[in-house]
């Protein structure tokens, strides 16, 4: 089986090379691009299997966003991860709205990044296979596919990022138990502050409410964390 090709668009050479080195060790074929033009030129020939994007590319402040939009236009299924130093809600919302599969800040450790990449590839593989998934988890109206990283609520698909999926998974695994913010961070392999977890949970709730306005299964247990009510 051919090596999966991962494209890294990052203007900082050291980081780019580090990522390439690390991902190569993990068995991927990693290629780095320093700016949008280089990447676009390469992508017109052939699309990679996964793209890791920085938002600010040297002087091109929102270059990552532009590139993400271009890539989504070419492929609906291509996994895209934003990896950036920008940690504002505004940027992450913008990134995810453009169709990115995940939005990560640069403080994430390489193993955690690798875990996300692996998860995304697993989903792509699972999608390609027609046979039913073996890692299905059902909690009442909720259907959770660990391989495909997909969720169905009352038979309706809900589009979650990898981080969001893992957070929800952590809640759903033990229904009725309170999961603290630290636990959720650990499960989702991110290190953020409490307020960011609140933002993530809000976003997950909103996605559920888009398909079911009465959705209220995720309960805030103030002072402790969150709980999935069966």
């Amino acid at each position: 089986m051919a090596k999966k090709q991962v494209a890294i668009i990052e203007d900082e050479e050291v980081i780019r090379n580090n990522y390439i080195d690390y991902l190569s060790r993990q068995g991927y074929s990693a290629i780095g691009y320093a700016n949008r033009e280089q990447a676009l030129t390469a992508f017109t020939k052939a699309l990679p299997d996964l793209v890791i994007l920085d938002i600010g590319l040297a002087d091109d402040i929102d270059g990552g966003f532009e590139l993400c939009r271009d890539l989504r236009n070419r492929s609906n299924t291509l996994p895209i991860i934003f990896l950036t130093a920008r940690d504002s809600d505004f940027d992450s919302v913008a990134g995810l709205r453009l169709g990115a599969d995940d939005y990560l800040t640069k403080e994430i450790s390489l193993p955690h990044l690798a875990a996300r990449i692996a998860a995304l590839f697993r989903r792509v593989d699972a999608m390609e296979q027609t046979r039913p998934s073996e890692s299905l988890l059902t909690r009442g109206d909720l259907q959770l596919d660990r391989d495909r990283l997909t969720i169905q609520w009352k038979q309706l698909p809900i589009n979650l990022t990898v981080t969001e999926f893992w957070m929800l998974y952590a809640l759903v695994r033990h229904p009725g138990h309170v999961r603290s913010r630290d636990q959720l961070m650990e499960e989702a392999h991110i290190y953020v502050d409490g307020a960011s977890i609140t933002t993530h949970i809000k976003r997950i709730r909103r996605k559920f409410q888009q398909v079911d306005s009465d959705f209220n299964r995720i309960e805030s247990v103030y002072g402790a964390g969150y709980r999935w009510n069966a």
Partner: protein
Amino acid sequence: MPENTRLHFTQTLRFKLLLASLSLVMIPWAGYHYLSEMERSLRQAQEVLLLNRAEVVANMLATNDGDWLADDSVTEAAPVQSLYVHPLRSPPAIDGYDEEWFDLKPKSRQFRANATDADAVSLQWLAGFYGDSIYIMVEISDPILIYPQSERALSRGDHLLLALPGPSGKSRKYRIGTPAPGWVNVVEYESNRQQTAINGEWQETEDGYRVELRIPRPLSAGHLSLSAVDIDEAGANPVGIASTSGWDSNKNLSRLVMPTMQVDSLLHGLDGKSHRYTVLNRERQVIGRYGKLDQAVDTNTLLSRLLALLSLSAGDRELDARKGVGRLDGPEIRRSLAGEGAVYRYKIAGSKSLILSAAQPIMVKHRTLGSVVVERSTQEILLLQQSAFERLLLISLILFIITGGTLLLFATNLTRRITQLSNKYSRAVSRDGRIMEKVQAVKDKDELGELDRSFSAVLKRSTAYTGYLESMASRLSHEFRTPLAMIQSSLEIVREERAQGSGSSYIERALDGTRRLNLILTRIGEASRLEQSLQSSEKEKLDLTAFCSALCDGYAITYPQVEFTCRLSTDPLWMELSPDLISQAIDKLVGNAIDYHQPGSAIIMEVENDQSEAVHIKVKNKGPRIAESDVSKLFYAMESKRENNDHQIHLGLGLYLVRLIAEFHGGSARVENEADGVCFVITLPYRS
């Protein structure tokens, strides 16, 4: 922010400007000086005028024949009273009626028994001479007429007392009376002998009686005294005597001024309304007099009455030392008799007005025969000055009111604008120096507008700088992230390479360092992220009691090793709150309390609803107290008073976030020291 203390009125701009307007007092002061100057020059002009007038009169007299000085001068030791005897063109009939005296009547002179009592007996004197006889007509006002029983007992009824010069300095006195109207009886005072040289007629009038007398000139020798004795009950003592002068000795008798016809007619041709003309002989004896001094003071206006109140002498009786005196003296008179015209000013006792007196010599063939004295009161000038002064005061007052009012209005406007300016910039900057709102400078084109514009420019620059400083932290954290990612990723690759090898503990330590650095950067961003999220936060209606109760349960789960005590009110408290933000704030307070609490002691959470429409959320812990000086600063950004340097990162943002959240809900946050610990309080407004 400057404290908005109310200024005392004396410290205000208004008061100061009003004080400045007091300088208008200078106007009446200057006006007074100007008027004094005017009075002086007017008086000088009047002096010159008076002197000229006296000269004219003197010249007129001098061009007449020299025999006008017919009256022989008698040397007298002291100035005595004088009685004017008019020269008559024909002898009047002695009939007790006043037809012949009609022309002279306005020139009659009144003598009263008592100056203050209007009802007391008074004597109206009028006299004339023709040839060798002196004619006297006196009208006595006496409401109760008592006639004596007989001509032998004249003293028992109303009668006249005539005194003429007698031998050896003593006067010769006569009683003149009658038992019934008609011819009078004249008897000698001591001997009661009839005297026939003097005759007269007695007639009753409306308010008394009239006596017309004829006395031979030699008998009087130029001096006499006439008195009216008033008897109101037959045989009783007199109740009052009106007399022209004393009568006991020759010295006391009034001197009769008997001018020649020429002098008299010449004087009567002059204006006698406001001037008094006196013609004197070389012995300064009066030989002709005409006119009177105008002393009527018109005190009708309010202001003049006010001014009169101020001067002490007002209301006193006026005493003209020269009125009716038979012999005048004065520096100007002496100088005029020495051959030189002169002016003298004297005061009438009891009056404010001065009398100007000009005397000119009467020169006939280089000989000074006498002197003409023209007197005039300065009353007119005084009145002029007074009315001018009144008008001046009135104008000053109006001016003061207008100017003072204008200044007051101006000052009020100025104060209002300055206060507005002050309030505007006080509001623009919060207590801890943050710029709250943008200010719009006014368009006024004066210095205050300029001040406003420069203030707002300063504030704008300051806002820009503050913005730069505020964004510094997040920009720094953003800038740090990339190099930190370089180090971190490199370290992770190294760790991966020598996964099995030794020495990896150093890498772990380095990675631990990068993790901590990442945490610091996250915390730095937290405050600015919160400020951002506050803007998009939505409040919902929730029961604070139930919410806090749930929070307590939550903390019990999160911190199983710590004891929590919740004291909540039993009533639900429905409020508009953002649960996420409130829980975040309480999380910070609880985290803080756990860090400082005395191990083993409980952390107390209270919700109190007091009557002043506020809800207090209190988090208390037993432990070290906070220095009083730090109590007010504790809620500011980057204020941390932690002494023990533990491994956690304390940027002093926690309490700052608590304050931001409390203020976002319209409340406040504070800390209080308790007996054995501290109490953090979030106060939120509550409407039941």
